[in-house]
């Protein structure tokens, strides 16, 4: 037997650790920042951009910022930075609007219960999911009485609703109300019955064809013409109706997409079991269609939630409405940048969390292939 003596150059033996530039942080930096000429240029441009943007912003928003002051001039006297004191002063309004302060606990309870009601819908492995689902079903009624009063609770008018409370009320009502309507519209649009199909299609295309703001204007200026004389709805209710109709058209298209994703065999299997239309929809088709469209339903909810900011245009006191009122106050004039950034952060955090959730669902639903 002959043993072959393999010769290696110095430092090339396979048992040696890789050279310093080919491992660890150095390699990562080289691969990610300086892999070729384009990358080097991009890194330089990006660094310059960050240098130009980040330090001044940090200085403005944190280093020079004033957190505690009674009015704008006091802020300006203390530093050139952001005047976050305005948020401290108005935090209650931004959260609850003009809701009576001694009843805040009702809003807080409704908010906490919202998550209890949502948990079994959003996650499959929640202890006691079966019973919690009944609670989810009852939640809208419960929340209504908690927020508006009645049943022995002190009543609160809609006009007092505002801030993020209003954002969440409109968003949640819109999506909850639009779900049944959206399912009906989606089924209607796929229906073979000509008249039902046409009505659904015209409604969906009309609502999707016009901006939400025009629908809100209809709610604020026109709806009273359409109602029998003498009936009066308060503005919030009118806006809620319009937002629900608006969301239902978008949801209908999402659910229609889900229905289109159900293989034909499922419909045929339901038929061959002798199930009628509604039974086959309820037991076979819709559970599957809704399940695969949940990520898109969440996305629709996110855009609806963002669109709730539009209600400021018809005069409701959502966070932007509150910011208008705040900016009109001579104590806090001219601090629009601070206020808008704070509201933007709020929306960013909540929408980002929701979009992460929808991404997680998409990954979970993406089984194989």
């Amino acid at each position: 037997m002959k043993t072959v003596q393999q010769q290696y150059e110095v430092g090339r033996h396979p048992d040696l650790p890789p050279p310093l530039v080919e491992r660890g942080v150095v390699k990562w930096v080289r691969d990610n920042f300086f892999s070729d000429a384009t990358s080097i240029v991009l890194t330089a441009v990006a660094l310059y951009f960050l240098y130009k943007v980040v330090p001044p912003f940090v200085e403005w928003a944190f280093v020079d910022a004033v957190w505690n002051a009674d009015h704008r001039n006091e802020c300006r006297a203390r530093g050139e930075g952001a005047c976050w004191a305005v948020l401290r002063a108005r935090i209650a309004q931004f959260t609850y609007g003009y809701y009576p302060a001694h009843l805040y606990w009702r809003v807080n309870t409704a908010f906490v219960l919202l998550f209890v009601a949502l948990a079994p819908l959003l996650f499959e492995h929640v202890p006691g999911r079966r019973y919690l689902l009944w609670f989810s079903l009852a939640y809208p009624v419960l929340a209504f009485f908690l927020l508006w009063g009645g049943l022995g609770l002190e009543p609160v008018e809609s006009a007092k609703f505002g801030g993020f409370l209003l954002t969440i009320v409109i968003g949640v009502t819109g999506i909850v109300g639009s779900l049944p309507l959206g399912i009906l519209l989606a089924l209607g649009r796929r229906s073979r019955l000509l008249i039902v199909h046409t009505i659904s299609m015209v409604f969906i295309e009309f609502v999707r064809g016009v901006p939400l703001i025009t629908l809100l204007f209809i709610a604020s200026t026109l709806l009273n013409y359409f109602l029998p004389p003498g009936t009066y709805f308060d503005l919030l209710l009118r806006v809620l109706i319009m937002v629900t109709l608006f969301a239902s058209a978008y949801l209908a298209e999402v659910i229609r997409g889900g229905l289109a994703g159900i293989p034909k065999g499922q419909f045929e299997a339901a038929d061959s079991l002798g199930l009628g239309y509604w039974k086959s929809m309820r037991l076979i088709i819709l559970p599957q269609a809704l399940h695969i469209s949940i990520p898109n339903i969440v996305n629709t909810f996110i855009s609806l939630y963002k669109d709730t900011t539009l209600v400021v245009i018809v005069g409701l006191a959502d966070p932007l409405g509150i910011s208008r009122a705040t900016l009109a106050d001579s104590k806090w004039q001219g601090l629009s940048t601070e206020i808008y950034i704070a509201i933007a952060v709020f929306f960013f955090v909540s929408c980002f969390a929701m979009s992460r959730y929808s991404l997680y669902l998409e990954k979970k639903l993406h089984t194989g292939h």
Partner: protein
Amino acid sequence: MTTATAIFPNPLRWALGLWRDQKHRGTIIQIMALVALLLFIGIIIRNTAINLQALGLEIGYDFLTEPANYDINQHLIDYNSLSSHLRATAVGVINTALVSVCGIILATVIGLFAGILRLSKNWLVNRIMYAYVEFGRNVPVLLQILLFHALIIHTLPHPRASLSPMDGVFLSNRGFYVPQPVLEPAAWAILAALVIAAALAWWFAGHAKRVQENTGRHYPVFTINAALIIGLPLLAFFLAGRPIGLDFPQLKGFNYQGGMVLRPEFTALWFALSFYAGAYIAELVRAGILAINRGQTEAAYSLGLKPNWTMRLVILPQAMRVMVPPLISQYLGLIKDSSLAIVIGYMDIVATIGGISLNQTGRALECMSITLFIYLSISLGVSTVMNWYNRRVSLVER
């Protein structure tokens, strides 16, 4: 006795039989839906008629020819407060069109850049673009409009101390002033040259395709056509004695005279809409590029196609099929979002006919119907084009 029992259950059974028969049930449901719809419409019309009568109003569009009595700060066609409501509407439509077209162009550019950079291997660039996309998509567009407006109004200096990054360009909180191109009569020669160049390019593209199909010979169509379309008008520009001049803005008193002004409202709306839609388009571009199977590239290479041919003939057509429909709905969304202009006082359709005209005349029904009609025509027009495109490029299998 017998007749009563024989007749009585029959109609019921007959009706039940109809209801249990799938065909007839469909018809019954349809008739019921139609009756419900007509009833609903009837009630609304009746209520409206009663309500209008109580207010002493009549539906009519005559008010459109009456003077509008309000000013619009940005009008591309002649307009003053004595012009009619109809003209105010036209100004609104043009303003919406202007900001939409500018927004669509800028959003596409931003989206394309961000989408491609988002796929970059450079970690830093990748992260910055990720931050941009997430910020753009998760903050309401209305808030972005207000933020951009606040930034322009509060951070830019007064006209007297305005920033001037280039000769003749002034940035201030009253607006962005830029030189305005002034067309002299001879400028038509350039336009004519452009038309001729476009016609020639179109003919040449067809010709090159025929030649290639018949003989296999290939012309560099893109290079030649680009040279034609840029070169010919440029030639005409110099031959006609440079008929386009520039009118520079100049500071007079408290503000600038001459030149062209981009008002803060327009700029804020334009940037915000582009910034918002750009984030969505970036994701579309990324998804479109990622959606194309790597096998497609390899197959094209194995056929002997060069890389740029592979891109043009194999990858792009497929990526476009994935990207174009959602891209167009983004554009449509941008047009609809431009209606938020009203919060910062940019005079678009909703602010003119749906806003001030409505408030001044009190004719809510008429004004809203016009506004809705305009938006619906835009949406239906765009979706018709989109359906046509989808049919043209859709995969025909089996």
